[in-house]
């Protein structure tokens, strides 16, 4: 058999020649596809819908930037949009309390005594149960007539306080309920972080006579920076997308004073009385811009850190 050997480069297919470059993209393709279809494209769709007036059923009417103009006037008149935006800011600030609270519990639980695994699980438990359940439990807790909170206050001759019925307290009441699972989340992040703390550095700190708060501030916390960063990111995002608790506990009430942007968007576009898709999309765009600000900041600081590491 004398067959003229063909040179390998000729038989090799185009794919074979380029597989080093292509394979990663092939593996990424499903992810990219779904990310594009379900995340990227809808962003642009939201932008475009926000320029229309549309009830979701009939034909859409192009109105330019009128939806944004309406939002602006709602802001100036201190109407629903203003309230939502204000509540979003309150959420952002108050929700961050979950980070120190989580850190505190993590430090407290980071010890070896009998049954510590059980205690850790119990502290982590609220994060596992559904937000809906958390909301229900807390609305019973706050109930002005039968709730535990008012029975408790009654012992000291205080109250009753209708937390969820008072337009000044309602947002704080909901945030407090939200902090319960969020603290558990931050706690678990810090617990894993604490596992990675270098014992030698602690030893060295001890030799230099560091203890208590000084030890925490100068030796432990710097090593927990990655955990803090992640906790910060998830808490900020969690605060901006707060929706379930509001929907369960108050439905945005009383008279719309516990709305946040995410809930307001749902209300005008998709709820029982909502038929303003364009307006809802405009709110979504505003929310997107705010989130984008944070996300850009996070990406930038992550980038800077990686650069610094090299």
């Amino acid at each position, binding site marked *: 058999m004398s067959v003229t050997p063909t040179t390998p480069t000729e038989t090799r297919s185009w794919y074979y020649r380029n597989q080093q470059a292509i394979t990663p993209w092939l593996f990424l393709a499903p992810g990219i596809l779904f990310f594009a279809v379900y995340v990227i494209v809808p962003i642009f769709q939201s932008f475009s819908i926000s320029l229309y007036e549309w*009830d*979701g*059923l*009939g034909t859409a009417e192009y109105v330019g930037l009128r939806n944004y103009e*309406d939002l602006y006037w709602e802001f100036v*008149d201190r*109407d629903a949009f203003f309230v939502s935006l204000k509540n979003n800011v309150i959420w952002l600030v108050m929700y961050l309390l979950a980070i120190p609270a989580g850190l505190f519990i993590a430090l407290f639980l980071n010890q070896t005594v009998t049954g510590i695994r059980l205690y850790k699980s119990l502290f982590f438990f609220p994060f596992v149960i559904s937000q809906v359940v958390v909301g229900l439990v807390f609305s019973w807790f706050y*109930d*002005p*007539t039968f709730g535990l909170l008012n029975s408790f206050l009654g012992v000291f001759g205080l109250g009753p306080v*209708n937390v*969820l*019925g008072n337009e000044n307290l309602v947002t704080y009441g909901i945030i407090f309920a939200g902090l319960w699972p969020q603290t558990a989340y931050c706690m678990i992040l810090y617990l894993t972080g604490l596992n990675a703390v270098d014992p030698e550095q602690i030893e060295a700190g001890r030799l230099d006579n560091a203890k208590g708060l000084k030890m925490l501030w100068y030796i432990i916390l710097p090593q927990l920076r990655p955990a803090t960063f992640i906790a910060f990111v998830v808490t900020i995002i969690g605060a901006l997308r707060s929706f379930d608790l509001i929907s369960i506990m*108050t*439905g945005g*009430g*009383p*008279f*719309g004073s516990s709305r946040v942007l995410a809930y307001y968007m749902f*209300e005008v576009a*998709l*709820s*029982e*009385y*909502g*038929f*303003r898709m364009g307006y809802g999309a405009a709110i979504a765009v505003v929310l997107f811009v705010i989130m984008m600000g944070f996300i850009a900041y996070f990406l930038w600081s992550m980038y800077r850190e990686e650069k610094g590491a090299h």
Partner: protein
Amino acid sequence: MRSMIKCAVAALVTSTALAGPVSAELNGDLKIFLDTSNPAPRATMEAMISRFQEQHPDLNIETTVIDREAYKTQIRNFLTADTPDVATWYAANRMRPYVEAGLFEDVSDLWAEPEIAENLASTKGAMTIDGKQWGVPYTYYQWGVYYRKDIYEELGLSEPSNWEEFKANCQAIVDSGRACFTIGTKFLWTAGGWFDYLNMRTNGFDFHMDLAAGKVSWEDERVKQTFMNWKELIDMGAFVENHQTYSWQEALPFMVNGEAAGYLMGNFAVAPLREAGLTDDQLDFYQFPAINADVELAEDAPTDTFHIPANASNKEAAREFLRFVVSADEQTEINNGANLGQLPVNAKSSVDDDKFLNQGFEMLSSNSPGGVAQFWDRDAPAEMAKVSMEGFQEFMVKPDELDKILAKLERARGRIYK
């Protein structure tokens, strides 16, 4: 061979003829979507559908029951994609978005049939948009004041026949350490009921409808008068405290426990009140009394309806189902006390012998000359209903903010009606 086939065919024909005594031979699938998710209405509907199935054995009926609140948002999806053949909804303005989007089938042909035209005349108006009918009603119910008769007797009070008596009663009840009325405004619409009655009694049905249609300013003196009447009750302490935190169901215990003496509600409140242990000796009903003697009494009587989506695939069977639902016998059956416990829409049906149904039927048929409204959130456009009911709730909590609230509603009016 041929004779055998003939035989078989003949046998088949006779057997189907025996099985289906009703003339219409319906087959294929019939998909029915219901929002009657509460236990009693659900059982009623399922029993009714099984009776329809018996009449049309060849029809493959598929029933889907969706949670009543969830239904209100899901309807927009299922009317456009994966459409059922029959769906429940509400009358008047509440069906307008779907009618205007061409998603409901025009069923004027059914309304032209004598059987329906003659017997359902009273609800025709509520089903009509642009001179055409877009569905059929299957039940309606009265609104009014349900009250604790034993408490009234204890305090020596009687059913009020005018606004002065109404307020005097209320004052007596408040003085006895109770609230006159329980209400839970968390989901807003209950406050809409109060507004309906106060405004219809103060300014009349026509004015009320003009307001719902956006023809009158919210800052009009007459609207203010309605709120002033409301404010009298609020300042008196007529309503239970913290109502903004409760749903209408959560407000029931106040009445059951005797902490509140009455409830302005639809007739559907009777069933849970009875279940909670109130007997008919303790519970009674009166029509909301006149406030302004110059306007005729008008009532709220929301109508629940069946529609055929425009994209339905088996419209013939769907039409037959609609005919079946409004037939006199079915109407008597599904609206009786053991089932929906509401009023039948067919004039030839009989009203079940229930104290509240009889009073309601009497009231709506002879003592509501001004007209019959559907309910605020069905008469006003959805957006306006939402904004205004939020305003009503705020007003009930902070009555002194009235001017600010009305200014906000007036701004909303300028935006919503064009």
